[in-house]
């Protein structure tokens, strides 16, 4: 699946900690979200800090994707708020979105356009370097096969789509990287390689949030665990976690 291994070391360049406007703190304060009579989130409070990787865990329907949606500014909470800070100052609006890299269930890329055309388009929207060398460097970093870069993205394998999606998410060197089930569809090697890339982003100083059921891929990398159950935060801990520890936490608190 993953024809070329990603370059984790150079992926550190994909985040830019310490740059002006970089988000270094996200305060999720009593966030609630209802869809009609359905409660998706009920008063979730959480702090996300620069240089950390938060594993957001929970069963299907626990509210993880909704929480990522709220943090990404794409879902409006029905209660509470999310505050973004950069060097102690509040950041809002376009400046927040400028700092967010989102890897969602879908690729968020156009199937009719090639990887290069997709990245050129989004680079234009983000106002970042859309030159061929810059795009080529980013695609090298995520390890997308050079022979596939000019082909329509709809012809890509799942692994290639995931690489393109990651490149799109990292295009503007985000300081807040949100990943919703990033390992879906990847084989074991691919999932572990992507986990390594995410660790590199964290080491570079980004805030990384990973929603996943693949505990093995984030074991040893996540240093912050939050578990949601039926829209409520039932556990929040910081520390270093092995696969067994993550599995134990998950089984004790998510059920």
């Amino acid at each position, binding site marked *: 699946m993953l024809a070329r291994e990603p370059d984790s070391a150079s992926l550190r360049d994909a985040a830019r900690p310490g740059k002006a406007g970089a988000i270094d703190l996200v305060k999720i304060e009593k966030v609630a979200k209802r869809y009609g009579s359905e409660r998706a989130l009920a008063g979730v409070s959480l702090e996300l800090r620069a240089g950390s990787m938060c594993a957001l865990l929970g069963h299907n329907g626990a509210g993880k994707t909704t929480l990522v949606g709220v943090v990404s500014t794409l879902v409006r909470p029905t209660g509470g708020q999310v505050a973004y800070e950069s060097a102690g100052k509040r950041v809002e609006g*376009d400046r927040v979105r400028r700092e967010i890299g989102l890897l969602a*269930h879908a690729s968020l890329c156009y199937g*009719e*356009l090639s990887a290069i055309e997709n990245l050129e388009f*989004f680079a234009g*929207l983000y106002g970042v370097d859309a030159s061929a060398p810059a795009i080529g460097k980013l695609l090298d970093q995520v390890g997308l096969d050079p022979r596939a870069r000019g082909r329509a993205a709809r012809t890509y394998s799942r692994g290639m789509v995931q690489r393109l999606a990651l490149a799109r998410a990292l295009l503007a060197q985000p300081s807040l990287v949100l990943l919703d089930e990033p390992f879906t569809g990847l084989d074991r090697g691919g999932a572990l390689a992507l986990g390594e890339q995410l660790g590199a982003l964290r080491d570079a100083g980004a805030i990384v949030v990973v929603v996943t059921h693949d505990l093995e891929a984030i074991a040893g990398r996540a240093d912050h665990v939050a578990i949601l159950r039926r829209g409520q935060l039932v556990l929040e801990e910081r520390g270093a976690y092995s696969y067994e520890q993550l599995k134990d936490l998950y089984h004790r608190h998510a059920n």
Partner: protein
Amino acid sequence: MLRQAARVAWKDLRIELRSREIVYTMAFFGGLLVVVYSFVFPVDPILVRAAVPGMLWVSIAFAGTIGLGRAFDRERENDTMRALLLAPVPRLSVFLGKAIAIAALVLAVTAVCVPALALLLDAPLFAEPGPLVLVLVLGAIGFAIVGTVFAASLLKVRSRDVLLPVVLYPLLVPLFVAGTSATAALIAERANLAKAWYWIGFLGLYDAAFLVLSLWVFESLVIE
């Protein structure tokens, strides 16, 4: 904001130029409607002058709705609408970009329907080409503005294909009235330019009013 809107519009048109899926479907459907009209209505000069404006605008409405739905389905396929809304640009530029692309597609349909009506029903649609082009451009813009708001807000709704015309057409009634009235005035035996310009002015006001309204409500409608 306008530069980013142009970027979004060009992206849509670039995809369409490559696939030609929407424009072919719209043009074929619009052309087919005209062919059907030519069979079911007698080619009588008086009847043609009375009925052709309605035929033209009904064709634009139906074909335009097909294109509108498909253009937003494209943004739904890989959830790319979220990527657009996440970009650090005014969300209104996303709206404007989508509307510009839709307007271009609607104009492409009119480029098929107008000659087809003139040819098959012997309609004098080229009697006053300048004002007619203005009517069609303003009509396409109005359709695109209102259509973009509703198509974007229904993106996550399961029955959007049914709901889109149901919510869209009542708001488009003034546009269709103005469009048909202006077209009728232009193809009358003795073209009534004063009346045509009155309705052209009305179309301009309609577009301006709905542009302001759409810019105001778009963001609140598309964010979940």
